[in-house]
């Protein structure tokens, strides 16, 4: 019987399998990297109706976050300032700046300024701002160095894994409650003696924190976690309720 297929065709099945494996692995890796929030979201910096410079308002002028985001300590939702809040100052300061035209128009017509939503928590996730900022989670932990941003961009991925990183180990992020709105705070700023006098030391502390020169974030966080009895939910219903 004659050979219908030439000799080189013997390798075709093997070649197909190898190609298939490479393709599947490549697709999986690409999806893993490019289709997750870490890649798709970070750095999202839409054009806002008014290019509001947080760096000028916070770092130069020294305004507190809560002047504009006034309900962040009381409500689940942190509000964006209404036109009235802007106009408290901008009827006198920079009152002819053309960049502020949308705000002035809004004030005249009564139609609100439509800010583009950057940090969007999906509807099936419950998130409470007040519960976090009142227990030592700074704005910085989720929104990055907003006080140095000339226009706001998305600085952290806000994916579920990212949420759980903190919910499983809150001691890496907790800070004293009076430093929550100080976005430039560093663990080195803490004075160990005062800190221990106010919050005590963790149960399994190996040394006396008050005698140390500096405290690390882990030491501060562990102290606060035990002092406030912080036990963040890591079950599904904690947030998807």
């Amino acid at each position, binding site marked *: 019987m004659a050979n219908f297929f030439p000799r080189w065709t013997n390798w075709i099945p093997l070649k197909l399998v190898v190609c298939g494996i490479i393709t599947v692995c490549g697709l999986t890796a690409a999806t893993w990297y490019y289709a997750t929030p870490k890649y*798709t979201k970070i750095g*999202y910096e*839409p054009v806002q109706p008014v290019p509001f410079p947080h760096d000028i308002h916070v770092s130069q002028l020294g305004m507190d976050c809560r002047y504009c985001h006034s*309900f962040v300590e*009381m*409500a*689940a*939702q942190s*509000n*964006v*300032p*209404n*036109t*009235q*809040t802007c106009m408290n100052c901008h009827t006198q300061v920079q009152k002819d700046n053309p960049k502020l035209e949308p705000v002035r128009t*809004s*004030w005249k017509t*009564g*139609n*609100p*300024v*439509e*800010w*583009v*939503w950057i940090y*969007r928590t999906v509807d099936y996730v419950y998130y409470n701002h007040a519960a976090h900022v009142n227990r030592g989670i700074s704005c910085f932990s989720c929104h990055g160095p907003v006080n140095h941003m000339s226009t706001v961009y998305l600085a952290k991925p806000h994916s579920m894994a990212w949420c759980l990183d903190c919910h499983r180990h809150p001691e890496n992020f907790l800070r004293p409650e009076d430093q929550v709105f100080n976005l430039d705070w560093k663990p080195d700023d803490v004075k160990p003696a005062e800190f221990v006098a106010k919050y005590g030391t963790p149960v399994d502390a190996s040394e006396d924190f008050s005698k140390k020169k500096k405290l690390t974030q882990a030491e501060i966080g562990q102290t606060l976690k035990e002092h406030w009895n912080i036990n963040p939910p890591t079950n599904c219903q904690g947030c998807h309720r």
Partner: protein
Amino acid sequence: MKHVFQHPPESTTGKHYWRSLGEYSDSPEFRQWLEREFPQGIAELNGDEWSRRDFVKLMGASMALAGVGLTSCRRPELHLVPFTKNVEWTIPGKFLYYATAMPRRNGAIPLLATTVDGRPIKLDGNPLHPATGEATDTFTQASILDLYDPTRSKRFVRDGKTIKREDFDAYLKDLRNKLLVDHGDSVAFLVEETNSPTRERLRGELEKNLPGMRWCVYEPLLSQGTIAATQDAFGAGARVIPKFDRADVVLALDSDFLDCGQGDLACEHAQRQHEPALCCGKSVHAHGRDGRSSAALSG
């Protein structure tokens, strides 16, 4: 498999059935209407430039092309829309309660209004008020819709045309001057019955300026009869407030006492000890507690 539903062919012999008077008369107008309403072969689009199959082919192609461009794979741009001017006292996502009252013929129903972002969404009885407790009635519950009634007047209108507030003020001023000339002899006020002290005060002020005016109170069911009966029974100035929560038997003659939409909600008080037996009707039936099961509402 394609199913073609067709009416059975009309038999040429025997009885002839018709489905409408038009079909029976079989006039040209009816045939024309039938053709317009159900044109022949509409489902196939035969004889047209496009057949149905061509249409589906084209639609399929455009759907496929839409998928190639990943048209819907953009980040949707949503907006945060704050208030222009803040609503007083509100905290986003939290309720704000106001104590208020709904005026009624013989008083008012004390209420708690629940508001979100300055918009009332629910009315409940004020639980701190001793007279009614948390009770409200159907009218109160329904009145929440009045606040969002699209036909509510929002502008000044004269002869069907929108006018300015100043025009209306000028009209009122004119009217006032005209009425003052004859001391109000030519004017009558037609009002509903109410207990509002504010309205009484306004009426007093009007009477001072317009001594000749007439003040007419009209209700479809005026409570004059009740007042007269109460006066005969208990003396002047008395008013009956039934406490149905304490009643074993309620005998109602020509009285729809369950519809106590007159400011007296004692019968709907939440702390009712037991259900009273109800006896209503044009003829007298008296039922005790034993006969409760047989007590029927009528009249």
